[in-house]
């Protein structure tokens, strides 16, 4: 009983991280048709922002020592600033380029960020404990101890989802974003500013990336210049199987990928556990064969059908 509960909580917390990362990708795709492969590097940068930029082997704590609310705000601000600079330098000049060109631009940005991290912080992994009490506090359920962190990850995800929905449904800016995501030209002809809406999408996407950074760092306790890449890969897969352009799809896809990975991790016999991702990707291929349009159909896609 306790064991199953632990598997469920692990599955939900991994699914939550993927869902948050996938939402960050989905928001930008909705407005700009950009598949931002640098999203994983935004996540990496969020973790590196916690320490003093220095080349040495040890992490010198900086933002990491701030009280939690300030720490969260500072990390978000750093990543939002980086995202807005990226938008201005790379994606604004490419605005009218094809989706493929935009994507290549995001690959380039990803390489630049990774190499900057290597130059500034060195390519060696560093260890950094963040909020270690979150993994130390445990609840005893039956015969199994369950840590606070995975529960917190799920709770934070639910709260952020709720806030995002409220923002998109209830605020004028949110309505403008939804309109632009559906029909960008028409929105502009009604006075919706393209630069504003796109910047807003970058801000939201970056804030989500920063939250993922912190939750992921608290979970792993390690800094690596490519730590965000696997998250990005799974989040991207999540947006594809969820249905590109649908935010609900991003969440559903992220949860699906996370839950499947965790359940396979727990359920596969030990000798094939190392090949878990083969099964995950096999399932992805299967889903795409059965539903090439993704699990959730976006409104824009539904219109075209």
């Amino acid at each position, binding site marked *: 009983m306790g064991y199953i509960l632990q598997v469920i909580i692990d599955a939900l917390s991994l699914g939550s991280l993927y869902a948050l990362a996938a939402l960050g990708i989905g928001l930008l795709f909705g407005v700009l048709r950009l598949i931002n492969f640098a999203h994983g590097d935004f996540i990496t940068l969020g973790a590196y922002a916690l320490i003093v930029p220095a080349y040495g082997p040890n992490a010198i704590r900086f933002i990491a020592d701030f009280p939690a609310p300030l720490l969260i705000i500072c990390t978000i601000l750093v990543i939002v600033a980086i995202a807005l600079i990226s938008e201005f330098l790379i994606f604004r000049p490419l605005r009218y380029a094809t989706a493929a060109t935009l994507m290549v631009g995001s690959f380039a940005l990803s390489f630049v960020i990774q190499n900057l991290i290597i130059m500034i912080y060195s390519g060696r992994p560093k260890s950094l404990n963040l909020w270690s009490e979150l993994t130390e506090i445990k609840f005893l359920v039956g015969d199994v101890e369950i840590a606070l962190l995975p529960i917190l990850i799920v709770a934070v995800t639910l709260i952020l989802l709720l806030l995002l929905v409220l923002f998109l449904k209830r605020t*004028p800016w949110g*309505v*403008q974003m*939804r*309109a632009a995501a*559906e*029909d960008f*030209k*028409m*929105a*502009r*002809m*009604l*006075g*919706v*500013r*393209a630069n504003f809406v796109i910047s807003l999408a970058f801000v939201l996407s970056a804030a989500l990336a920063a939250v993922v950074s912190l939750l992921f760092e608290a979970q792993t306790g390690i800094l690596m210049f490519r730590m965000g890449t696997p998250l990005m890969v799974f989040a991207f897969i999540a947006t594809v199987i969820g249905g590109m352009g649908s935010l609900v799809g991003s969440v559903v896809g992220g949860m699906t990928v996370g839950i499947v990975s965790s359940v396979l991790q727990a359920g596969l016999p030990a000798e094939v556990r190392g090949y878990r991702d083969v099964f995950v990707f096999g399932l992805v291929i299967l889903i795409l064969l059965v539903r090439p349009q993704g699990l959730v159909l976006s*409104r824009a896609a539904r*219109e075209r059908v």
Partner: protein
Amino acid sequence: MLLKVDNITVHYGRLAAVRNVSVEVNEGEIVCIVGPNGAGKSTTLLTISGILSPTEGTVTFSDRNITGMNPENVARMGISQVPEGRHVFTSLNVEENLRIGTRMRRDRAEIERDFQMVLEMFPVLGERKRQPAGKLSGGEQQMLVIGRALLTRPRLMTIDEPSLGLAPKIVDRVYEVLTDLRNRIGLTLLIVEQSSERALKAADRIHVLRSGQIQLSGNAADLRDGEKVKQAYFGFTEGVKHEGEVAF
């Protein structure tokens, strides 16, 4: 003069969709551009709205050069376009659709008055305020996009094929509304149509556009019999014009 489109040429890639087209609209006028499919009518409207940029020529609105200005600023200048195919935001509800263009206005009290006016004009929109706009019928969607454009309080409204895909009865209603708007609040209109019959009735002046060029311009009153328009529209020459008995 409110709008002056002066000798514009617009290219899609290397292909010129519109060549040396000039259109003028005075305050309070209804001007119609008619022409067959692919004549460059939509291109002209999209160029006025800043979605497309002309390779030559200028667009002047209320004495300001707006050539190449971005669409959101053109909208702020007071030009509101109802594009072909209506383009309602299907995932937004009816009220969100109506209000989205009011964000650029500063006159809060006036916005509410205009909103009530639109609901009076199209009661069905009020009844379905909370419904997703995608659920409305074609005619209702046409009312919605006209209302949405009106709520930006435009000085010039441009409409691309308001009759497209609508039942004749609903088309009548649309033109009734448009003419009424001109008479009541002095709205200036630039309408693009493929079939010219209704347009001719509603318009003060018309331009016939074919193959990217203006073939004929004139006062609607002078062109009512339709013969000249027919010639310009189909490109008949003097000698063969009676051979083609085309219902018009």
